């Protein structure tokens, strides 16, 4: 029975993952899924509405599904449909996550009901004036100097306006029957425009018609200024990247003499959605989709793939596989050494293949090398470490490689999950970073340097924990671990050095100095020097096996400082993305590593494995 364990476990994991991608599994109708696939231009790139919905929900409330106050569960696409087309419903969904007690008090909570942390727009709206006033006070304070209340209020204000910009993306504020209004506009267009023209030239005109037409124009101007979602494609023959928002497209009605057909299509969808007319909704989405197919086949295809990618959640699936792999690796040291080890190896392999496919899909969608921001660096560090672990395991076959893979893979993907809360993770690159060559060389190599330094540290953690708390660290395993750590530190020295100097060369190419003592550069340099220090300390005989392990564990601190700590200083060219919570996690991590080094220095008689 145990002989087949690897096969069964890996097969079950693969089936669960594949079911996630299957179209029928998501609890939403095919029409809603088709709507989610429609491409729009947002934050500088083409993406499906599904991504807009998911990344907005992550920013607002930290996860992708919505639970209404009457305990109905909505998918992100259904939520987006309500926001766009039935805002009076959407305003009642509790999606604004607030965890600061002072801010909760500001929006009307008191001691009795302070625990509720997700609020709806309707609940917050009556307090919008106080929120705006507090935001105005907090906003001028530099981000890293804000109190928790100040950051929370700035964040809430940003989230509210994010929500409102989305709510006003297609329909004007307070519109009851947008399709009817547009059809009426189309009908009166010729007379109305004529009346306005006559009025401007001071000729006799129908005042009512002119006033109605001017009012429409003003409404469209307001619409065009209140959203940044560019959902309406350009006309044939125009610049294919010049998409408009719906207000802007409607303003062109007066010049062109007809209402933009794409806006009409969206108005039709709104009408059908409001009337719960699923059949008509599906029909209109289908018609609009096929018209896009003709003129924007590439964008439609990318949007389709991205929607599948979103639903598959490869990194989330990989995270659980790595965790499973770690548990099986640990199991193999206690029972079923061969079967559990091979199961663990199989799970790591499957998780790694899925992560590889996920990274490849992201690269194809973005047209960029794998690492472009903090989020993708977390994924890639995990991918690189796990890849190295697979090699180690293939060579040593002692479940240490897969245990390390499980730990690092799981940890990096958890970190990535939290970094994704900042919004769309396929964001555009700022001009200074816009170089695929350097992103592909410097960033990839230096990230592998980080990954391998972490790997050496994690192997050392396994050595220390197994040696002190279990009796499983026999001489052969201990020597094997020491060789692994030494080899990985050599590898890390090479990659962190090459990566860091490639960064220097990039800096010389774009800013005119090879080295500028920027915090992130310094962080990378410290990793290089630390790895060099470990090697020289060993060559000099200053450390033996246990000392090597302690130095490698300290490498975890050095690397995490460079990865996250340098961003927290809020200075320099690389200071992107910083969250308050990350500071506490980093501190906790550093303390845990120091504690490990401390217990590693217990006399050897206290190590359970080495007690004679």
């Amino acid at each position, binding site marked *: 029975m145990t002989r087949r364990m690897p096969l069964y476990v890996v097969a079950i994991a693969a089936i669960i993952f594949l079911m996630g991608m299957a179209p029928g599994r998501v609890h939403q109708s095919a029409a809603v899924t088709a709507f989610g696939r429609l491409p729009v231009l947002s934050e500088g790139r083409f993406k499906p509405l599904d991504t807009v919905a998911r990344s907005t929900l992550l920013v607002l409330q930290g996860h992708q599904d919505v639970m209404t106050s009457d305990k109905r569960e909505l998918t992100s696409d259904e939520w987006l449909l309500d926001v766009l087309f039935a805002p009076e419903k959407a305003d009642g969904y509790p999606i604004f996550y607030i965890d600061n007690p002072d801010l909760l008090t500001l929006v009307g909570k008191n001691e009795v009901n302070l625990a509720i942390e997700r609020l709806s727009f309707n609940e917050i709206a009556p307090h919008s004036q106080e929120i705006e006033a507090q935001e105005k006070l907090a906003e001028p304070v530099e981000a890293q100097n804000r109190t928790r209340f100040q950051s929370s209020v700035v964040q809430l204000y940003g989230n509210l306006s994010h929500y409102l910009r989305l709510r006003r993306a297609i329909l004007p504020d307070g519109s009851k029957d947008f399709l009817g209004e547009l059809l009426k506009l189309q009908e009166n267009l010729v007379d109305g425009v004529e009346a306005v023209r006559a009025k401007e030239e001071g000729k006799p005109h129908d005042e009512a018609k002119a006033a109605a037409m001017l009012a429409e124009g003003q409404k469209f101007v307001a619409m065009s200024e209140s959203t940044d979602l560019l959902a309406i494609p350009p006309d044939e023959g125009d610049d294919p990247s010049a998409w408009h928002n719906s207000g802007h497209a409607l303003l062109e009605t007066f010049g062109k003499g007809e209402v933009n057909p794409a806006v009409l299509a969206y108005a039709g969808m709104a009408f059908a959605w409001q009337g719960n007319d699923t059949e008509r909704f599906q029909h209109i989405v289908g018609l609009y989709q096929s018209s896009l197919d003709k003129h924007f086949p590439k964008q439609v295809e990318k949007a389709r793939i991205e929607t599948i990618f979103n639903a598959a959640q490869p990194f989330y699936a990989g995270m659980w596989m790595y965790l499973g792999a770690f548990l099986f690796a640990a199991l193999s040291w206690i029972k079923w050494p061969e079967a559990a080890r091979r199961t663990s190896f199989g799970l790591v392999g499957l998780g790694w293949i899925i992560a590889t496919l996920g990274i490849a899909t992201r690269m194809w969608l973005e047209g960029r090398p794998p690492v472009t921001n903090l989020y993708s660096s977390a994924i890639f560090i995990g991918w690189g470490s796990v890849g190295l672990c697979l090699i180690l395991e293939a060579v040593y076959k002692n479940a240490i490689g897969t245990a390390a893979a499980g730990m690092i893979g799981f940890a990096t993907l958890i970190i990535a999950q939290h970094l994704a809360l900042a919004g769309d993770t396929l964001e555009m690159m700022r001009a200074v970073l816009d170089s695929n060559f350097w992103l592909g060389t410097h960033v990839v190599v230096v990230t592998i340097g980080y990954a391998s330094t972490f790997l050496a540290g994690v192997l050392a953690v396994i050595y220390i924990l197994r040696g002190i708390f279990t009796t499983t660290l026999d001489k052969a395993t201990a020597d094997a671990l020491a060789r692994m750590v030494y080899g990985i530190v050599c590898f890390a020295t090479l990659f962190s050095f090459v990566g860091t100097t490639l960064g220097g060369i990039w800096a010389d190419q774009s800013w*005119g100095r090879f080295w500028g*003592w920027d915090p992130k550069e310094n962080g990378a340099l410290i990793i290089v020097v630390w790895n060099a220090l470990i090697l020289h300390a060993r*060559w000099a005989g200053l450390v033996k096996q246990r000392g090597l392990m302690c130095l490698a564990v300290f490498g975890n601190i050095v690397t995490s400082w460079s990865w996250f700590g340098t961003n927290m200083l809020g200075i320099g060219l690389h200071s992107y993305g910083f969250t308050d919570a990350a500071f506490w996690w980093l501190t906790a991590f550093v303390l845990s590593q120091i504690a490990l080094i401390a217990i590693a220095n217990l006399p050897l008689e206290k190590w359970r494995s080495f007690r004679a």
Partner: protein
Amino acid sequence: MNDTLKQARSLFVSLRLTVVLLALSIVLIFWATLDQVNLGVWAVQHKFFHSFFVTAKIGGVAFPVFPGGYLIGGLLLVNLVAGHLYRFKMGWRKAGIWIAHLGLILLLVGELVSGLMQKDYQMRIDEGETKNYAESSRQNEFAIINATDPNLDEVTAIPESLLSRGTVVQNPSLPFRVVPKAYYPNSTLQMRSQVPNAPPSLATSGMGPMLAVTPLEVTYKEDERNVPAAFVELVGPDGTLGTWVVSPLLGNPQKFDFAGKTWKLVMRPKRIYEPYSLTLEKFSHDLYPGTDIPKNFSSRIRINPADGSPSRDVLIYMNNPLRYAGLTYYQQSFDNNDHTTILEVVRNPSWLAPYIACGAITLGLVIQFLIHLWGFARRRTA
């Protein structure tokens, strides 16, 4: 060889010293990184890296508290060279280590040279404008211009450092002595009418009597710059000509006539003149559609060579600088509603050193890594 010398030798060639120096350098870099929050990157470089000791002021006196970049780097260099000379053995096994360390020596020396020799300037050019000089972004100079000939300016430039030390300047091209009376490294200028209780001005001529000069704290922030101001008295053979206020804030030069000539006084960013000139033909600044995220900045520049050979056009943009006549021009910033480009101009004679050094170190490490891997694989198959 006597014992002391032997001890010194074994200290300088030892790997223990290497490890200690590496550990010290990590502390130094980490400390310097944290201190950037207070001092900014420029002051940090001088305090920590371009110094033999990091000093701390205790009771107003500067004490050395930690070895600085020059000391650690210098000792590493000595340790590296001594160690290799002492332990030198021919053979392939250490070939990678040798090449890598040779590269490291070149890297350390190259960085020392560039730390000492690198100069950076800025060049602001409006669209259509032609310029033959770049300006320092940190240093200023006090320029006295003989503008008698409308076609030719004869410039005598006095560096800011002389003004700050109060050095009296007498120069054969000037018919008067320059006597600095007061100097403020950072300041602001206001109209006297706006500052009713300002102390009486030292100035007697030009704009000075109308202005109030308020000294400010020196700033180290990256996005701010210090604006110096100075009171300067000019003394001719027959006595004083008056005292002027000069500051880069004043913009236009102050004019006066003396000894039958027209003179202009101005304090401005220090300039370096080049024999050739550059013309900005067009600056472009693209955004991603529907956002404020910059996609690209670029400057189309015409180079007008010194020897009168035909001019040529180049495009400077992100990650694509212009290297010309020993200087490198980088797209740094822009201004004036996208009609002015700001180029960073760097003179760094050792710019090639890190390229060669990094190539050598990488090659060395790869060789060594492969030697290890080869040995490891052979042992496992054996």
